[in-house]
């Protein structure tokens, strides 16, 4: 029971802590404008990096915004890590297969949960029963095999790169090595546990056991679960939570070029921000003049 409960709690903590982190960033005070072009929101102009400020008297004209272009750029980053592809191809290969593998493993876990629910509902997940069960059966195998293979290969390549690249190794802290080692350990323990049954029926059964809090523990499973739980809880507390940070750095900093127009929501936000009392003061002599505070 404890083993099932602990993995559910750690998964909830992963989601909760990630959401809390996002909440913390969202609550931060309004910052100065720091947009950097191209801003994909700029309809048509984003292709060459232009903005609404290319228009004379831009404030008197309706802004031409394209949410679709923003979404496309966002997806390019999320699905392909485009900036790394464009600017550092050699690292992109390792990073991309690693991140793509994580997407596969997330899909695999969701398929295991769906499969377990299907099993618990009485319809056994196999290749022959129905189209749905066959779909779950094959897709679970595919996502699991690809996910484990490329995530592990990617993590190993990233670790090796950090160890042997003379530049990266100068800047990598013990914690940053630990992050990759922890992920690799969780992945390898998963491979050890699940590889005897590549149809993942065992994995689906254990998932069902987790959901019914009836996991039958064995040493290997306990080790894998502990590693997985530590990883779930640790990720949102570390820089590996960049899936949260990346949203803010792009959407709220680099792509945020909302002007302070009369009657706009931004005008209100600025008014409120300017009205906030500041308690910490700088100490240089010229900062002591009333206008500096």
């Amino acid at each position, binding site marked *: 029971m404890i083993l099932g409960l602990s993995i559910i709690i750690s998964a909830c903590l992963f989601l909760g802590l990630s959401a809390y982190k996002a909440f913390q*960033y969202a609550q*931060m*005070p*309004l*910052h*100065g404008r*720091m*947009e*950097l*072009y*191209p*801003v994909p929101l*700029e309809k048509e*102009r984003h292709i*060459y*990096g232009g*903005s609404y*400020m*290319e*228009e*004379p*008297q*831009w404030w008197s004209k309706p802004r031409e915004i394209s949410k679709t272009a923003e979404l496309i750029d966002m997806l390019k*980053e999320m699905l392909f*890590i485009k900036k*790394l592809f464009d*600017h*550092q191809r050699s*690292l992109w290969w390792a*990073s991309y297969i690693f991140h793509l593998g994580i997407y596969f493993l997330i899909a695999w876990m969701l398929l295991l949960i769906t499969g377990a629910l299907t099993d618990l509902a009485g319809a056994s997940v196999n290749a022959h029963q129905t189209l749905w069960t066959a779909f779950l059966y094959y897709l679970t195998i595919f996502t699991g095999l690809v996910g484990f293979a490329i995530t592990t290969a990617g993590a190993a390549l990233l670790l090796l790169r950090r160890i042997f690249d003379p*530049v*990266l190794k100068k*800047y990598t*802290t*013990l*914690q940053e090595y*630990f992050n990759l080692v922890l992920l690799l350990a969780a992945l390898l323990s998963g491979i050890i546990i699940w590889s005897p049954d590549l149809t993942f029926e065992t994995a689906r059964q254990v998932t069902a056991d987790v959901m019914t809090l009836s996991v039958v523990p064995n040493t290997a499973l306990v080790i894998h679960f502990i590693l997985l739980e530590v990883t779930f809880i640790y990720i949102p507390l570390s820089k590996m939570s*960049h899936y949260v*940070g*990346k949203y*803010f*750095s*792009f959407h709220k*900093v*680099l792509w945020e070029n909302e002007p*302070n127009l009369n009657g706009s929501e931004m005008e209100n936000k*600025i*008014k409120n*921000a*300017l009205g*906030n009392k*500041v308690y*910490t003061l*700088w*100490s*240089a002599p*010229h*900062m002591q003049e009333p*206008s*500096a505070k």
Partner: protein
Amino acid sequence: MMKEKDLRPKELGRPAEQLIHLDQLMPLSFPYDQPGMETDFPAVKPEWQEKYCTSLDGCVAIDTLTRPKTEEEEKEFIQQFLSGLGKVFSDANNSVLQPLKLSFEYCAKCNTCSDACHVYKGSGENELYRPIFRSDVFRKIFNQYFTSGGKLKKKFIGADIEVNWETVARLGELAYRCNLCRRCAQTCPLGLDNSLFAKEIRKIFSQEMGIAPTPLHAKGTMLQLKTGSSTGIGKAAFLDMIEFLEEDIEDRIGRKVKIPIDKEGADILLSHNAGEFVAWPENPAAFAILFEEAGVDWTLSSEMLGYDSVNYGIWYDDAQAKKVALKQMKVAKELGVKRMVIGECGHAHKALGVVADRYVYPEEKIPVESWIPIMWELVRTGRLRFDPEKNNFPVTLHDPCNMVRQMGIVQPQRNILKVIAPQFREMTPHGVDNYCCGGGSGFAIMSSPNFGQFRDKVSARMKFDQILRAFSDTIIDKSIPKYVCAPCSNCKGTIREILSHYQATDKFNVRYGGLVDLMVNGLASIDKPYLEFLSDQQI
């Protein structure tokens, strides 16, 4: 002895007369790839070593950062820095808290930013100038002093740096080895910005420790707030200059142009970098000629800060930036103009057009825009007519980072050039991907005691190479003038310095100037060449 390329962030404070030597710079393109085309760095004078922090790379950017005389002074210096470092993540720094925390927390140190940095590349890929080097030192010091935990935890998170006077002083200097051009941020897969650390270090030095380069602070924002302009020009001198400009216009083109001053309720208040009046009066004169010819309702201001659009505060001190910007806006508001238009000055564009956009309450607001879209409108609608043959020589365009990468004003200037300059060619890369001129964030105006050398040889090196490549077809032919169009005062100043440093004007007839100067030169209605270098040359 340790190799310079093996330098690590935690060694910033290690004892050494000079941490690195700039002796293997990026090779330049033809004809500067030939032996004897470039001089070496001059030796560092012993009196500088004694007085300033020359121990980083031999150059001195912060002339107010002097060596301590006693151990107490040394301790106080470190303490002040740490006190400021703590404030960086407090409510004292609300306007940058979110972007800074993101960059502090999430940098994966993937090193993608290095290849984007013109200082790093120009230096011959010297480790010290790698964008993550500076931010890693910042991170290490912060974690050492502001993160709880024992020795083991600190080692685990990389808080392993020895902090002494040399560490802090070198870090202060290192903050002035970044032009804040933000090209690195453009390439970051996580959308983070390493230039923020350079800016925050500069802010700690200024806002907490009262230490900033004289040209930026004492002779920059302080002088501007006191006299009305960072040039020190007062109202009377400004009005004299305008009179001189009117006479000069008449001499140059044989046309009487009355420059409107303090015209209440005008459509446009044009605000120039006051350095233009002193160093390049032909530039504000060109604006006057073009606006007069197109029948624009405009004015200049003779009020304090109204005649100088510069705002050096955005490079090193948020409070100074805000004071300057608010006063500039107040002038426009009181004059009752409909809009404020910024002339050929990149950082003034960003300061008033973008940064100050979030400084003001509704009642203080005045619309701010760039001169470029307005001028393109005048060209597009035929209010200004040109004879492009007058500009029939190679022209290339420098994209000022503040206007282009940081404001998205990319196309109108190109549209104008396509109309007026038949031999216009782009630099590589260009537009939002362009390299900084090397004078950004104050470097253009910082020369003493030897910082000009760093600018000309290292930070502006990539730009000079871009210029050489843009003119590779004609560079060797001295009879053909080649024009670098730099529509920004500081960029223009930097290009002036590099052309002089490399003797590119004397040897290869490479010239520089603004866009409006080139426009006036191409005006169909004017008979004589407006660009001085054309007077003695036949195109």
